């Protein structure tokens, strides 16, 4: 019997993989990919709660929709920033962004 916990575990694995991706990648686009996975992990939880609890049947799905839309917006802006960064530094290595280091 598949229950709520199973989906929560999938969400947790996605979340952690995203965190590891954000921490481990030096390519700015890799970091962006990590952020997307973190948001997906959260979304899986939302939709799972919407399925298994009737009080959240509407809220869970609507929150997931809002998250997806905001993630799209975030990706567009982040990629624009990355491209600008590449124009200035000829690299997308996040370690190259160190002008503001004290």
């Amino acid at each position, binding site marked *: 019997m598949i229950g709520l916990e199973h989906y929560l575990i999938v969400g947790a694995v996605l979340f952690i993989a995203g965190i590891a991706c954000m921490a481990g990648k030096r390519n700015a686009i890799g970091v962006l990919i990590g952020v997307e996975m973190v948001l997906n992990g959260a979304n899986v939880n939302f939709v799972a709660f*919407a399925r298994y609890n009737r009080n959240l049947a509407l809220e869970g799905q609507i929150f997931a929709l809002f998250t997806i839309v905001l993630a799209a917006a975030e990706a567009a802006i982040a990629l624009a920033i990355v491209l600008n960064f590449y124009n200035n530094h000829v690299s997308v290595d996040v370690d190259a962004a160190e002008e503001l280091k004290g």
Partner: protein
Amino acid sequence: MTFEEFLFWSLALITCISAIAVAASQNIVRAAVWLLFTLAGVSCLYLLLGADFVGAVQLIVYVGGILILVVFGVMLTNQGPFVNMKTSAGEWAISLVVGLLMLGLLLGCIFAANWTELQETLVVDDAATSRSANDLGLALLGVAQPTVVPDAQAPKLNVLPQQKKTPVAYLFPFEIVSVHLVVVLVGAAYLARAKRRRRTAA
């Protein structure tokens, strides 16, 4: 094993393995391909959860939009066709340890919590639990609906005593998100154009 369980386990395995592969792969385009499998797997999980509309939105926005955007970004910023930006072993170890610790924390929380109070013990009919695209659309248009789904099988269910909530609608957040998207469109266009304008001015 019922068919639903078989579907869940195979989809969950695909999703989790490819998510880990995204984090582990060194080539950024490979990471994007694994991300495709992760996102498609999550979309199928949504379909399995009875959230058709969210699953389709996941497919069209993530796979058809964000992933293409990411691949575009990779291709525009790669010097050679197959550039690796190697992560050093120390950084790897740190991210692995942090990741495993957090995973342990989350799994501990999931197993420690008593979900049976929140979760209905019977998996009810799809039509009763999952909201259709119509309900979602009405809610986003600001038509308030009762949040509690009318209960066809009340005697069989072991649910919380349902406190009367006021019906909720989401017109205002919807408008905010729309305005937000317009702002993002303008902002992304501005950021992407900045360099070319400077060159023409100079």
